């Protein structure tokens, strides 16, 4: 059994701590099951299931720390692992940025576990794949997809009395459908904590429609266009920006949030005033982890409010040095949007381009958060509120900071990659060249 209860996990952690001779000891215990099924050319290519239960022990002497990991849980093995962590710690160099472990914390209790996901069987995975492959085979389309489900727990504890436990499930599904002549391709992606919200058939139907509608694509000239970015397209750019909100990098002068002449751009209005991004572990659509890896509680945090940068992430060391609250990196984030559907946004667009997703996104300039990448699996020209015809894929060179200043409209947020993101209508989005790829 690799999913331990809170009590079982606490018992093991307490046992480990009882063996400690170190100044300080922290323990992380995690385990679970991961299952997957992969298919291509309308046939299952690989599928598997793996189980894991592992314990990581960190011992501290002064400013020296050492970590050992183990996956055996009898008393003798646990004690051996404690001694090994202590031995590694004694030999380690001093860490001038060492921060002592946290004492007991209060954690929220997000609804991140679903029994239905925990109950997924190999047969369930096979039928989920069949529901996706079968409609494609019948229409002479080719399906390639992947589903991965995870059921697991995380427990942390230390010699100062901190203890935390969380149990969570998740399922990720993505599907690419291609036409037999290779001229059309469509895509859909879903992720949930509760697998009963996932219909591989419905997601596949969207990918099928996009594949069939994207053949005979026409070439448009590269340039600046009004775009409607589906959440699967905007998520990577937004996520990259959210991951660049580290205060230390900004203070050190090597971030898009560093100020000319020194200082940071906290409190500055950097985006359109309708941009609001926050994180909340208790959100019912994207329930997150109650704690960060080092034991800091996850709370509701506003990162961008009415276009103004409200918070940056801090390591505990840097926060202490700066005398501010040590806000950890969030799990997912929520970008507030409107009430309109994607269809409504299209209806309200005179001329524009609908983007299903972006691909191969890479940083070009960290100073301006300029990224490059390409459209893929369903790019369409919109005229007078209607999708007119499919277009060839474009390469873009754009910064999420510029993009969120050129905001025209937002739709209703949907879950994507563990975050909630609205479809975005953006003006002057920069496409720099054409791609022949389908």
């Amino acid at each position, binding site marked *: 059994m690799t999913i331990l209860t809170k009590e079982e996990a606490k018992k093991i952690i307490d046992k480990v701590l009882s063996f400690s001779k170190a100044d300080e000891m922290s323990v992380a215990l995690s385990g679970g099951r991961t299952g997957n099924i992969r298919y291509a050319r309308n046939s299952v290519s690989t599928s598997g299931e793996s189980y894991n239960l592992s314990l990581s022990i960190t011992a501290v002497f002064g400013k020296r720390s050492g970590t050992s990991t183990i996956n055996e849980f009898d008393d003798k093995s646990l004690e051996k692992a404690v001694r090994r962590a202590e031995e590694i710690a004694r030999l380690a160099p001093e860490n001038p940025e060492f921060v002592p472990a946290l004492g007991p914390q209060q954690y929220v209790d997000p609804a991140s576990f679903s029994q239905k996901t925990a109950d997924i069987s*190999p047969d369930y995975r096979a039928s989920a794949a069949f529901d996706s492959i079968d409609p494609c085979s019948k229409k002479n389309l080719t399906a390639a997809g992947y589903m991965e489900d995870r059921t697991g727990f995380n427990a942390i504890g230390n010699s100062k009395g901190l203890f935390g436990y969380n149990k969570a499930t998740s399922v990720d599904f993505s599907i690419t459908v291609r036409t037999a002549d290779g001229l059309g391709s469509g895509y859909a992606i879903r992720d949930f904590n509760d697998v009963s919200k996932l219909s591989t058939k419905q997601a596949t139907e969207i990918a099928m429609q996009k594949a069939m509608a994207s053949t005979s694509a026409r070439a448009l000239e590269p340039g600046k266009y009004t775009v409607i970015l589906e959440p699967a397209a905007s998520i990577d750019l937004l996520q990259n920006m959210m991951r660049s909100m580290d205060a230390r990098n900004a203070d050190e002068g090597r971030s898009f949030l560093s100020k000319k002449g020194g200082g940071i751009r906290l409190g500055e209005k950097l985006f359109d005033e309708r941009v609001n991004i926050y994180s909340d572990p208790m959100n019912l659509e994207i329930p997150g982890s109650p704690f960060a890896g080092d034991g800091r509680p996850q709370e509701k945090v506003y990162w961008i409010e009415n276009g103004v940068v409200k918070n940056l992430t801090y390591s505990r060391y840097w926060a202490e040095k700066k005398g501010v609250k040590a806000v950890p990196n969030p799990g997912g984030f929520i970008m507030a949007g409107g009430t309109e559907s994607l269809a409504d946004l299209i209806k309200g667009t005179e001329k524009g381009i609908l983007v299903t997703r972006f691909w191969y996104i890479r940083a070009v300039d960290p100073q301006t958060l300029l990224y490059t990448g390409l459209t893929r699996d369903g790019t369409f020209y919109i005229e007078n509120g209607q999708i007119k015809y499919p277009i060839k894929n474009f390469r873009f060179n754009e910064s999420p900071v510029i993009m969120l200043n050129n905001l025209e409209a937002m739709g209703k947020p949907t879950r994507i990659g563990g975050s909630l993101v609205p479809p975005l209508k953006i003006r002057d989005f920069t496409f720099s060249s054409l791609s022949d790829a389908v």
Partner: protein
Amino acid sequence: MRRRDFIQLSGMGLGALMGASAIPVLGNVVPAEHLIGSGVDVATKKRLADVALNAAKSKGATYTDVRIGRYLQQYLFTRENKVQNVVNAESYGVGIRVIANGTWGFSATSDVTPEGIAKCAETAVSIAKANSKIQKEPVVLAPQKGVGEVSWKTPLKKNSFEVPVQEKIDLLMNVNGEAMKNGAAFVTSNLFFINEQKYFASTDGSYIDQDVHRIWPTFTVTAIDKQAGKFKTRDAISSPMGMGYEYLDGLASEKIAGPNGLVGYRNSYDMVEDAIFAAKQAKEKLTAKSVMAGKYDLVLDPNHLGLTIHESVGHPLELDRVLGYEANYAGTSFATLDKWKTKSFNYGSKLVNIVADKTQPYTLGTVGYDDEGVPCKEWDLIKDGVLVNYQAIRDQVNILGEKESHGCCYADNWDSVQFQRMPNVSLRPGKEKLNVQDMIKGVEKGIYIIGRGSYSIDQQRYNFQFGGQLFYEIKNGQIAGMVDDVAYQSNTQEFWNSCAQICDKDDYRTFGSFFDGKGQPSQVSAVSHGSATTRFNGVNVINTGRKI
């Protein structure tokens, strides 16, 4: 049992360097001295392997291979005068792959006992039988004659794992100190060491024991102009190698003198010297002229061109991609079978000869046998500019009408199933005597690019955009100074057909990718790409400078 942790590198400067956004750590964390030695002896491994082969056969498998693997990793992370982390990890277990009812089945276990292995073999057969119900065509496996009991080892002078951790820390502290002394505001430096101790056995009658070593030293230097609110970085121009710690000897005989005092490194790297160059060059980048967009002749250093070869030749010629097995993730390929069948598809100009190989000394892809027991070899992918072959493994090569696998099957751990991975893919050097200085003399309007920068390519490998670490403008046959904000965009076939000149073998060096990602769930692999400095005419250069 599976343990796969990731060290997040955001904010550490290395994020953009990796195929993956995080560095994978496999297995349990152990003390450094635990990484010395070879673990279980060969006779015991053979006995355990036979348990798997017999157990699978008795359950109905028509083919079985078993890999008993001990995978060792040591990673060091530092910044300025601090050691951030030293990770020593060991992963040990068995992966068993079978064919039953004409279908693959795979299972893996960390229980390396006769009982654990027999049970694992049984599971692999049951998975094969279950999947055979929805299998459309049975697996066609290219024949492979058993090679008997053999062994292979990376030719090493100094086993990296036997070098004390303190010596490695001292080197990195020296690298960081010199960078800071020479104008860096910040520096991160890292050492990555990998040792794969792999035992392979199959029902073909092969028992192969291999000891594979890899090394990657690297750093990122940052220079800052606070007043202007600007920062610039310069990454190491080292290459990951299939070598021991001797790669860090910094031998003068392995240095290649370039124009303007620039230095390239062949099979020996001077990390401290490169850090000093990096600090000075990062500072120079702060005031470098922003490039004027337009068409330029590009002179590409091997330490830059390697990644362009990787993305625009290596990946599109993976046969599983061409067939559609990666359609939902990495994508498919423009280099379709019908193009190959014409025997006249001009991938590049007549100068372009690109070879796949797993035998070249000091490279990341080189081993004696691949992960399905096939002896490794060299073969042509592009000959005189024409597409002539792909990369294929035992269950694909029949599609090409060939009877022998190319020997490029790989799994990143004992608990990962082996599949087709890129061998070393390299551009052959030019036949005529030519060095970089002479090549530059012939360029009227050009840019000389060194080092790995931002890179992006579409899912069928037509349109790409590449940046670099260092850019020098060439005017009338001479280097006119450093420029910045450079990226070039092209189309694979157009780009390789614009190849106009290649330096000779004396300029030849390898570039490497240490954590190349592929598959779902994703697996990493390490691969080298050799080339000499090469000229491409009339390539579209864009300016990447922006204001926010």
